């Protein structure tokens, strides 16, 4: 089957990326100017303690052996033990990953929905006030650092108006502000490409041909145009996913949700390397998986990809 071959090809192409991702995550630890163990234990560590910890982490082995051991452990679901919490990294992450996934997905949902609607309207009413407003608001949101927007929202709606709780995930209401912060910021990245893609597609011959045969304009947009912008928009979605994740890490810190973001930031500051590596790897692998998924969705949307086995 041609389609099966396409899927297989995509899968094979993912393998070097996965290897690369693990390699980068592994090597980050060795970027440190000094001995990571010495830094972990602080300036007053005794040589014996250092030696014990080195052996414990396998740091006395040559680098490739260390990498393979680490990889083998990860394959078995063992990300090592946190220095700070003295608990398995897997446990720390699995306790918190739900919160981060929830925030990321709700932020993504808001941004894609809002961005697509605005982008489509702007394209349909090209050069109208709505179009300019769409462009301008997009510029505005992408020019604001996410952490600051979160602080301002928290100040206005949490501290002044008292509409929402100021810290922690305590129910649906507490989800609104953080999700909206990410949604508004990322919406801009979908609205403008959506507008551009839509304008491009609306200029295609098949749109004019569909109109010439009497298809209602609304139908033309919904059936003929929208489906054609889906492939580039899915690309955009996969492209923005890392940024949405980064956004939710930052927003999570501001809103004091105890998710993976707070765990990551605290672990970076405390030099809790096993945790940092674990979180980084989980994030990167989910991005890789999302990209693979996007590739598979293309082939469902666009029949040309199925046959040629490549993007147009």
């Amino acid at each position, binding site marked *: 089957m041609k389609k099966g071959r396409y899927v297989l090809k995509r899968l094979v192409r993912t393998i070097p990326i996965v290897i690369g991702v693990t390699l980068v995550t592994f090597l980050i630890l060795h970027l440190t100017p000094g001995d990571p163990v010495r830094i972990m234990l602080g300036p007053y560590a005794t040589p014996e303690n250092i030696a014990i910890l080195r052996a414990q982490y396998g740091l006395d082995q040559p680098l490739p052996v260390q990498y393979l051991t680490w990889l083998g452990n990860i394959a078995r679901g063992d990300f090592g033990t946190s220095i700070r919490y003295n608990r398995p990294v897997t446990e720390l992450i699995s306790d918190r990953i739900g919160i981060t996934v929830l925030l990321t997905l709700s932020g993504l949902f808001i941004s894609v929905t809002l961005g697509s609607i605005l982008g489509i309207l702007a394209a349909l009413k*090209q050069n109208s006030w709505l179009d300019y407003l769409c462009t301008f608001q997009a510029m505005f949101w992408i020019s604001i650092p996410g952490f600051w927007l979160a602080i301002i929202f928290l100040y206005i709606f949490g501290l002044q108006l008292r509409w929402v709780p100021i810290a922690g995930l305590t129910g649906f209401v507490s989800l609104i502000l953080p999700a909206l912060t990410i949604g508004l910021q990322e919406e801009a990245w979908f609205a403008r490409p959506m507008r551009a893609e839509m304008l491009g597609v609306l200029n*295609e*011959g*098949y749109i*004019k*041909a*569909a*109109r*010439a*045969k*009497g*298809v*209602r*304009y609304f139908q033309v947009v919904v059936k*003929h145009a929208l*489906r*054609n912008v889906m492939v580039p928009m899915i690309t955009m979605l996969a492209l923005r996913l890392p940024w949405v994740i980064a956004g939710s890490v930052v927003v999570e810190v501001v809103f004091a949700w105890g998710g993976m973001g707070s765990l990551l930031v605290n672990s970076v500051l405390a030099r809790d390397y096993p945790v940092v590596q674990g979180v980084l790897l989980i994030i990167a692998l989910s991005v890789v998986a999302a990209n693979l998924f996007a590739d598979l969705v293309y082939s469902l*949307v*666009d*029949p*040309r990809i199925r*046959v040629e086995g490549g993007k147009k």
Partner: protein
Amino acid sequence: MEELLKIEQLQVAFSTEEGPVEALDGVELTILQGTFHGLIGETGCGKSVTGQAILGLLDNNALIKGGRILYRDQDLLRLSPRKIERTIRGKEIAMIFQDPGSSLNPLFTIKNQIEEAIRLHRKAPAEKREEMVLQALKQVKLPDAENLMYRYPHQLSGGMKQRVMIAMMLACNPKLLIADEPTTALDVSIQAQFIKVLKELKEKLSLTVLYITHDLAVISELCDYVSVMYAGRIAENLSMRDLFKDPRHPYTIKLVNSVLGATTTLDQLEEIPGSVPRLINPPGGCRFHPRCEEAIPVCSQEAPPLREIKANHSVACHRR
């Protein structure tokens, strides 16, 4: 014969980055029921704009400045976009375009796209539609229609796509079909095949067609009447017979002489000195005068009106 479509004094301008372009400046032509009407002119003379204006499919930067397009006595220019969409497009007038490669939606099967036309314009139960799709494809002599209709556009050749386009538009059952340079993007041998299909349809269905092209040979093979267009205006309206026996406008004469020679398409016309004027700043008076050997002083001052010199033959020239 009954007049099906009559264009009167149509004026269309485009606003562009470099300034306004007067694409059409008083186009006049009449299409008779059951005839093939050719509209010929060089690239950029406004013939495609004329076709798109009829269906209200001009780009957003176009402005209709005046004139009427009478279809069975109703002025299409005064219909609301909604009314045109519901009552004219497809149902009364359909159109096929120059580039068959981009005229079919790449994401839907041939069947899906033809069925859409049938669903819109013909009352047919769902189970009969497939049969109608097949019929439409067979009508344009597409081989292996049973399998072909499940294909996607990218799996078809250019000539096949253009025939699918005709099938799709004819499936709407329109009274008038506008064909905007349908063969320009095709190979010569495919062109011939396509024209043969069209000729057969002409005899079988008593179609009315506005055939837009820059290829005189194609027109002479298909059409009953011809409108010759130059730089946004009609130079001459005449019958096919008169085109070769009694052309009046100097431009038409050059055109016909060139086709009797070796070159057939207007883009290869070297016999006419000078080049097509750019419509952003057209010459005053008769727009052809800078290239005309017979020009007299009045030609550069006044635009000649289109005058009827005999039945079904009118010309816009001060010298005639």
